[in-house]
């Protein structure tokens, strides 16, 4: 298949002059055809990002008029919001929560997701049922699953009675952090599983036959054939999950609650500032989070070469 061995036909290109002369015309047409999309993207993505950036430099100070009790607000531009965000542990704690959530739950999700995919890939009776069943957690809206897990982790809930413990999951502490990781893994491991399954399905069976003929063990076949070939799909899945977890908000907010130190993420910090009408400071948090996610995503793409632009899978040496 083309994935591994490019067919000779692919390397044959049309003669150069014909292509360049056509390119000018089609380029203009392409730009014209794309312009509505670019305009919409600029409006719904570009503008908000720039506006938020501008807002994050807008420092407001409020005072109360001692005679009427009315609020008087003055606004100026400066870096005060960022100074406040980077002072004491207001940033560090949610940053660490966000990061540790990402590391822990993505690792678990990849391990469990790959296992799920391997199971779903086997031919057995009821395979369709298993595939559909595995997808159920992914199909449940996060807010709803947050409520479900909140019940499970209630002090008088199922988790405690099954484990025969009296852990107060929703009180602040490591257990609250763990509860969020468990709920997030439950919900999104199927997503990883599904993407990996799609990757598995394009691996030709002949490769395994050849490996068997060569006397490779199942374990060796997994490491040398399955994993390398499923890697592009897996990398995309992990990247999506990373981006998703880094902006996590709903699960900890609903499952444990706002302003609980052990589960407060950067998004929750931004939200908290916004609900208290400090929009500048909220925008500063959001910008920090934006930059952080961008850096992580970039580093990830550079390290693992996720193929996001659809250039086709490169064959690995």
């Amino acid at each position: 298949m083309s994935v591994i061995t490019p067919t000779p036909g692919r390397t044959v290109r049309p003669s150069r002059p014909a292509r360049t002369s056509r390119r000018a015309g089609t380029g203009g047409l392409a730009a014209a055809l794309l312009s509505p999309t670019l305009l919409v993207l600029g409006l719904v993505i570009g503008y908000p990002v720039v506006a938020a950036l501008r807002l994050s430099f807008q420092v407001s100070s409020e005072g109360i008029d001692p005679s009427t009790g009315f609020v008087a607000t003055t606004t100026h531009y400066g870096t005060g919001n960022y100074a406040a965000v980077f002072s004491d542990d207001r940033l560090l704690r949610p940053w660490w929560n966000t990061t540790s959530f990402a590391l822990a739950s993505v690792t678990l999700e990849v391990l469990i997701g790959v296992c799920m995919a391997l199971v779903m890939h086997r031919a057995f009776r009821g395979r369709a049922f298993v595939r559909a069943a595995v997808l159920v957690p992914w199909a449940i809206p996060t807010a709803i699953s947050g409520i479900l897990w909140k019940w499970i982790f209630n002090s008088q809930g199922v988790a405690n009675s099954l484990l025969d413990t009296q852990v107060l999951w929703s009180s602040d502490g490591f257990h609250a952090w763990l509860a969020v990781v468990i709920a997030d893994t439950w919900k999104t491991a199927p997503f990883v599983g599904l993407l990996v399954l799609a990757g598995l399905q394009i691996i030709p069976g002949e490769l395994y036959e050849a490996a068997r003929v060569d006397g490779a063990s199942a374990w060796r076949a997994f490491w040398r054939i399955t994993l390398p070939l499923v890697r592009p799909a897996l990398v995309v899945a992990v990247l999506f999950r990373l981006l998703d977890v880094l902006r996590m908000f709903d699960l900890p907010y609903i499952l444990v609650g706002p302003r609980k130190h052990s589960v407060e993420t950067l998004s929750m910090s931004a939200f908290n500032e916004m609900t208290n009408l400090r929009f500048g400071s909220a925008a500063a948090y959001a910008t920090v989070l934006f930059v952080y996610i961008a850096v992580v995503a970039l580093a990830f793409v550079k390290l693992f070469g996720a193929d996001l632009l659809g250039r086709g899978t490169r064959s690995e040496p």
Partner: protein
Amino acid sequence: MCASVLAGCGDSGSSDSKGGPEKSNDRGPITLASGKDTTGTLQAQLDRWNKQHPDEKVTLVELPESADQQRQQFIQNAQTKSDAYSVLNLDPIWVAEFAANQWIDELPANEFPLDKMIPAVVKTGNYFGKQYAVPFNTNAGLLFYRSDLLDKTGAKPPTTWAEMKETCAKVQKPPEGKDIGCYAGQFDKYEGLTVNFSEAVASAGGEVVDAKGKATVDTEAAKKGLQFLVDGFKDGTIPKQAATYQEEDGRRAFQSGKLLFHRQWPYQWALAGAKDGSSKVAGKFGVAPLPGLTGPGRSSLGGLDLAISKFAKNKATALDFIKFFSNEANARTNLKVNSAAPPYADLYDDPALRKQFPYLATLKESLATATPRPVVVRYGDATAAIQESAAAAMSGSQPVDAALADMQKNLSAAIAEK
């Protein structure tokens, strides 16, 4: 549409700095913005008004059920100066914020029967000595107790914390009483904790924020209040699980017979008394005012207040409507139909109502000494500061003195604003 409205509003807004909606002569259709009507009874009341005032119809705008989301909608509406909401049904803790930001108009206090209402409840609509909102209904905490277990030991409902602990010890002494927890309230880190902490401080004779608007949680009384909660967790008076209790968690514990005393809002009366088997304590409980340090304690206030948006049209109609909506007849209906506690004092003495709601006498006592939650413009920051330190002290991660010192510092910062 908005622009023309804004122009009109701007005019009246600038001219009414001395006078509120009573100066307005604008009449016409208005809206009532209120949290989701879970009782399904609001529309019937609006229909009665609409029938009598065909040219000044009121439309109900239902907002989300969650208080935080309601506040957000109200604020967004105010920040865009939209006239979509005329009359606002506000949680009392927002009144200061809305008044200070000039999002609501001052109301003509003398045109409302405020003297017939319970004074503490009227105060919830007050900011800087002016009435910005009038009570629609109110709420106060009660001490639910297991009358069957108290009778067995011959104990009376406690009026002090020490008495409560004594009674618990007596009930828990026999082997069958081992599993019952003594006391719980709402101690999860959310608004309920602010309510319960403020009650503990008030019940010890202190104040969270004094009349001048200064934070006063560094006082001896505040210390004794918090100490009661912290000791409760330490010595087992308050079961450990209660650290995660919101209203419904505590209700489940009380209804399944796991609690002897429970600080709760009156709504628990009907549910705990249900005879369909959902409650194991039906017919076995009573209510009393909250206990305190040296005598009866003081509850925090809940409820809802009505106010008029600064940016509303037809303010004369809005004012008339609030007078109608908050009148005694409607308050009586609301009590009867959905057991909402009325702000009017004499309804609590009505024999027919007392028969239907036996807890009314106790609730009146509780309301008489109740205190509004701290009046702070930046209430969100204030309640966060309270919850932060109270939770730290109750979980044992911070000593009481240090927690209160932190709370005093953060609360003062929230009040001072920057």
